[in-house]
C-alpha cells in the first residue's frame, strides 16, 4: 500500500505522483481528497485526488512548506506511511450545458477529474488555465483533449494571453452563455473567480483548501464561513458555492501558522541543503 510507482516533475517545485492504494482507486470520485502522513513525525496533509490509473491514484504536490518540500523529495519506490481516503463530498457532476472550468497552479490537477466527469455527461467545456509563466501551466495536453474551447493566461505573457484567469473568464462570458463554473486554484484566485462569476450571475463551485488536521469532521480546524454559517470543509466540502464563502476570513485563517511554517522550513533547509533543484 501507498507505494510510489511513478514520479514526474510537472513544473518547478511541482511533482506528480502515482501512488498505489486499492481503496482510493476503487472509490474515489471527482472532487475528493486524501489525507497523507509521510512518516511518524509528519503532519497530516490534505491532497486532492487528481486521477486514477490501474491500481494507482494521482497526487500533484507543490513544494511550499516543509511538509510539501519533503513530500516532493520522496522517490519512486518509496512508500507514504499513511493515506486515508477518499474523503470529502464528491463534485456534483451532471449535465449543465456550457460549463466553464478555471484552474490555476496545482488546482489544475484537481480540476482534471472533474472536467473528465463533466465531459462524460456531454457538457461543453470552456477551460481557462492560468499560471505565473508558461512552465507553471500544467496538464495542458490533457485539457486540450477535453476542452471544447480553451484559454491559457500567464502573468508574464510567456504563453497564451498575458493576464490572469479572470480575464479568460471574461472572454468566455462575453462569447458564450455559461451555465455553471468550477474554479480550483489558490484561494485568492478562487475569491476573484467567485466575484467574476457573481458579476455574470452564474453559479460557481470552488474547492477550498483550509488548514486541516484529521479530515473527517473531528477537529474543526478547517472551518469556513459559508452563507453566514460555520461549515467544515472536510465533510461539508471541500466544494462550496464561491459567492457564499467568506474569503477574507479564509485567507486570514490560512495564515494562522505562518511563523511556525517559516521556522520549520528554515530548519529543514539547514538540514537538507540547497533545494533549488526541486
Amino acid at each position, binding site marked *: 500500500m501507498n507505494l510510489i510507482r511513478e514520479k514526474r516533475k510537472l513544473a518547478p517545485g511541482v511533482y506528480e505522483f502515482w501512488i498505489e492504494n486499492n*481503496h*482510493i482507486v476503487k*472509490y474515489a470520485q471527482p472532487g*475528493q481528497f486524501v489525507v497523507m*502522513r509521510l512518516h511518524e*513525525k*509528519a*503532519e*497530516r496533509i490534505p491532497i486532492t485526488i487528481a486521477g486514477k490509473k490501474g491500481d494507482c491514484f494521482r497526487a500533484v504536490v507543490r513544494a511550499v512548506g*516543509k*511538509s510539501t518540500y519533503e513530500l516532493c523529495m520522496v522517490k519512486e519506490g518509496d512508500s507514504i*506511511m*499513511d*493515506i*486515508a*481516503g*477518499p*474523503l470529502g463530498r464528491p463534485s456534483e457532476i451532471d449535465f449543465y450545458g456550457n460549463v466553464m472550468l478555471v484552474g490555476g497552479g496545482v488546482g489544475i490537477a484537481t480540476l482534471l477529474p472533474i472536467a473528465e466527469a463533466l465531459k462524460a455527461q456531454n457538457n461543453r467545456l470552456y477551460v481557462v488555465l492560468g499560471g505565473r509563466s508558461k512552465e507553471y501551466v500544467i496538464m495542458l495536453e490533457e485539457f486540450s483533449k477535453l476542452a471544447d474551447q480553451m484559454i491559457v493566461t500567464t502573468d508574464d505573457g510567456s504563453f497564451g494571453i498575458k493576464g490572469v484567469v479572470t480575464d479568460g473568464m471574461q472572454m468566455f462570458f462575453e462569447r458564450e452563455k455559461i451555465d455553471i463554473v468550477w474554479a480550483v486554484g489558490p484561494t485568492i484566485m478562487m475569491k476573484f473567480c467567485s466575484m467574476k462569476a457573481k458579476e455574470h450571475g452564474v453559479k460557481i463551485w470552488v474547492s477550498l483548501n483550509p488548514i486541516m*488536521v*484529521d479530515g*473527517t*469532521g*473531528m*477537529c*474543526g*480546524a478547517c*472551518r*469556513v*464561513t459559508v452563507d453566514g454559517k*460555520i461549515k*467544515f470543509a472536510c*465533510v461539508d466540502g471541500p466544494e462550496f458555492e464561491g459567492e457564499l464563502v*467568506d474569503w477574507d*476570513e479564509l485567507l*486570514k*485563517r490560512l*495564515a*494562522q*501558522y505562518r511563523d*511556525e*511554517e517559516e*521556522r*520549520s522550513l528554515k*530548519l529543514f533547509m539547514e538540514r537538507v541543503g540547497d533545494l533549488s533543484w526541486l
Partner: protein
Amino acid sequence: MAVKPFPKKTPMREQEAKERIKNFFEVPFGYSEEEAVLEAGRCLQCPAKPCVSGCPVGIDIPGFIRKIRERNFAEAAKILKLYNNLPAICGRVCPQETQCEEKCVVGRIPGSEPVAIGRLERFAADWEAEHSVQTQIEIAPAKHKKVAVVGSGPAGLTVAADLAKRGYEVHIFETLHKPGGVLVYGIPEFRLPKSIVEREVNYVKSLSVQIFLNMPVGRAIPVKDLLREYDAIFIGVGAGTPKFMGIEGTNLNGVYSANEFLTRVNLMKAYLFPEYDTPVRRGKKVIVVGGGNVAMDAARSALRLGAESVTVVYRRTEQEMPARREEYLHAVEEGIKFYWLTQPIRYVGNEKGEVVGAECISMRLGEPDESGRRRPIPIEDSRFILEADTVIEAIGTEANRFLLSQFDGLKLNKYGYIIADENTCATSMRKVFAGGDIVTGAATVIEAMGAGKRAAEWIDKFLSGEYDPWK
C-alpha cells in the same frame, strides 16, 4: 479481620506541581509493591461486594485486591483481564469516585476514604507489563464468523477483544493513523501516556483482532460492503464532532475547539514542534471555555505549552462542573484560574484576524433545567472583557454526521445519535449494533467499555442463533 482499616487512602506519589507544568510526563507515579499491598489491606473483602455493582464492566474487585494483598500480582492482573481488556487505561482515567469507590463500604465508615480501587487496578496492570508477564487468555475455538468494528476507541477495542476471545474473527476499521480513538487524540500524555494505550492495543491485537488504519468507513469502504462481508457490525465511532457556541469571532485565529487543540497536542505531538511537524499555538494568555474533563485537559496542556496564564471560564459553579474532582484539583494546584458563572458572548479580534480577547457576561443560577442542574441566566450589565491570545472551546461534542449518513435506514434520535437498545446495543438495522458515545452522547471511557462489553455478549448470542431482535 476485626482490624480497623487506616482511614485514608495510601497516598500516591506524584510530580510536584511546579515541575510538572513544564513537561508532559505523567503526573502520578503509581504505587510501589509495598504501597499497593498496604492499600489492598484496607479492603474488607466484604461479601456483599457493592463495589462490583458500581463498575460498568463488573470486575471482581475484591478478588483482584485479595491477590495484591497476597502479593500474587500476576494473578491479580489475570483476574482484571478476565473482565477488563484495558485495565491500565481504566486505572488511570475512570471516574472511580462515582463508580466502584463510591460504593465501597470502607468509604462509608465515618471519617474514612474508600479503598483506592483505581490506583490498585493501575498497579496490577502496570506490574504485569513491567514484569513482562503475558497473561494467557483462553480463546474459544474458531466460530468462522466475521464481525466488523467501526472505530478503535474504548468501545470498539472492548467489543473486539471480547468477541475475539469468544472465537470470532474481528476486524476493526479506524479512520485515523493510530488506534485508540479518544485515548490517543483526546486524553493528554500527562494523564494517559500513549505508550500505555499502545500496550493495551497490542494486547487486543494479540487476541488476533486485526486493525485496519486510515480507513474511513463509508468512504474507503462502503457500508454495503461491510453488510455483505460481515456477519455483524458494531459501530463505536464516538461523538467526535466539536460543538462551537457559534458566537461572533469563532473563526478568529487562535480560537480552537478542544478537539483540534488536543488532537494537535496528543495525536500529532505538537508540543514537540518543530521536531514533529504539526504546530500548535503556544498562547501566553489562554482562556478555556467549559467545565468538564476535556476543559481541564485543554487548560493543563496549554499551561505545559508555556502559557503565562490559563483561565477556565464556566457558566455554572464549582459544584456543577462535570470534571472529575482529581482533575480539577490538579488544575488548581498547577495554577489554573477559574471564573465561575461566566460565559463568553463574543470574541474580539485584531486586524490580522487573531483573537485578542473574549467579552464575557456574568451568570446567576435559576431553576433546574432538564439536566437537573440549575440553569445559568445572564446578568444584564455585567459584561467585561478578558484578554486572550488563545481561546479553547471545550463545550462538548456531537455525532459525526458523515459516517452515519452512509448507514441508510439507521434510526437516529433528535440529537443525531444512534438509537440502540440500552442492554443489547442492537440498532434499527439488521446485524448492526452500536455503543459508546455515538449512542449516549459524550460520556466516559468506562461507560463506552461497558457498552462494548454488553454488545459483545449480545452479538455472540445473535450470531449463535440465541437472539434476534430483528425478527
